């Protein structure tokens, strides 16, 4: 890559490495240790080596949480990517100025926390503001009603959360896409839709898979929307992690669940990297 290798560069890396080790690697090591600790009533935890926190994963309680979390995240990820792909594609073919304006807006939405997204959607779907009122006003329903909390409102929130990230992954790839390829397909007589499906889509498969996995991991990590927009039976793994850590004061069990969530996420990210490399290898 770069021919320059001089030992004098080392001091540069000293501070960042120290900071990341102390404040990121250590916390993880401690969390891993704590996941084997024993919980102390009314306090935090005491050192021990127990597998009991992990054994609780085998209960139906935990199985249901896991199924809910994965089902919600997978559904949201599919909806997001199905919408974000054509969106990014069309966006990348607009004028540069229009692209910038829309990207600024997408970035602004991306920066919003789950608190604000949850609050905004619960307002939009509430009885006194938003669609409940609107449907009543145009005469669609007799009396205004709330559309939240519920499964649909939770999914809307998750899609809203994940959409900007999908654009972030897909947009660079589609804007680098060679415009002449689909044109060539069209000149050889393929319809626009067919050119899109048989030429554009296969080239984009890698970033689509990447976006799917990223959005899945992101929405799997959602900890607040299920509380604000869903009902208790829609609570996902991160909600239970927060609940155990803060309200049940069971940090060891929370840590064990966090390690599990971490492993699932890492496995998925690893999978996306492998898929990406294979594709790259195949195409060159």
């Amino acid at each position, binding site marked *: *890559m*770069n021919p*320059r*290798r001089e030992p004098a*560069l080392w001091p*540069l*890396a000293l*501070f*960042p*490495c120290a*900071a*990341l080790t102390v*404040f*990121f*690697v250590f*916390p993880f090591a*401690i*969390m891993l240790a704590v996941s084997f600790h024993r919980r102390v009533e009314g306090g935090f935890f005491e050192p021990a080596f127990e597998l009991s926190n992990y054994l609780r994963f085998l209960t139906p309680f935990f199985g249901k949480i896991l199924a809910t979390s994965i089902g919600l995240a997978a559904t949201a990820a599919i909806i997001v990517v199905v*919408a974000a792909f*054509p*969106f990014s594609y069309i*966006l990348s073919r*607009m*004028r540069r100025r229009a*692209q910038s304006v829309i*990207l*600024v*807006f*997408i970035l602004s939405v991306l*920066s*919003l*926390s789950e*608190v*604000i997204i949850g*609050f*905004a959607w*619960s*307002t*939009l779907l509430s009885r*006194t*503001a*938003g669609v409940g*009122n609107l449907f009543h006003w145009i005469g669609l329903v007799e009396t205004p009603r709330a559309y939240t909390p519920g499964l649909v409102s939770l999914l809307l929130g998750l899609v809203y959360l994940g*959409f900007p990230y999908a654009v972030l992954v897909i947009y660079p790839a589609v*804007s*680098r896409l060679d415009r002449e390829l689909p044109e060539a397909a069209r000149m050889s007589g393929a319809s626009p839709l067919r050119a*899109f499906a048989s030429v554009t889509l296969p080239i984009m498969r890698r970033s689509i898979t990447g976006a799917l996995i990223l959005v899945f991991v992101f929405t799997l*990590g959602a*900890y*607040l929307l299920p509380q*604000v927009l869903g009902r208790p039976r829609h609570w996902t793994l*991160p909600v239970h*992690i*927060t609940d155990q*850590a*803060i309200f049940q004061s069971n*940090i060891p069990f929370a840590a064990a669940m966090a390690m599990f969530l*971490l492993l699932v*996420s890492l496995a998925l*990210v690893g999978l996306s990297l492998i898929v990406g490399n294979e594709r790259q290898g195949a195409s060159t």
Partner: protein
Amino acid sequence: MTLLLQRGFIGAVLVFLVAPLFVVAGVSVNRPKRLLFPPDGFSLKWYIELFVQNEWANALTNSVIIAMLAGLLAVAVALPLALFIWSRGGLLARALFGLGIAPFMLPPVVSALGFLVFWISVGLYGNILATIVSHAIFLTALPLVAISLGLEEVERPLIEAARTMGADRRTVFRTVVFPLIRPYVISGFVFAVVLSLNEYIIAYMVAGFTAETLPIRIFNSLRYGYTPIMAAVAVLFVLTAAVVFGAVAFLGDLPRLFGAHRSEEP
């Protein structure tokens, strides 16, 4: 796909993205202390209340202090790391880059719990310092990615030339490299600040009951009593983000920062 259909699709998606924010903006100007839409009357008093009511003003102060210091600290970690990675290259550099972005890529609740057990262990649980440092580590990824993108633009012959003419590494950095990457350093800083302002779970886990930030305050109000101030904060957050990212786009090339090729300028 015809042009009309394309524009219609983009429009529909934008409506989906704008609708909740639009309703929140409407709710924020209610005259009574209720979340009505269309709003009952028009008043900007809830924007003033944010600065006047003690709990909200405190949360605002905490949020701004945390975001500014965390942003600075994140850049202080990311800038030397990006320079090291850029000038060294190789496997170690890639591993360090991975370490730098990992806190941001993991599920936030996992990072948050990691920070929680760490601050309990060192006895700073509940201290605002814990929130600042945790945010800085969490957000290091943003300036790291932005500065690395900027460094890719720096042409190495330029540096070779400066070195040949006798400039030492420090001088080269000060006179050649830094001016070129300055916009990227600033973008990285503002990205970190905006995301820190919005961040909830880490702030909540490490010091949620003592150093209350605006997102924590909003979430508490969602549970224990709605007020249009929540909507006012949401509107201010969206505007801050739009102004900041708009400025980044105006000063630099946002599509390029997103990774689009400059050569494809239509």
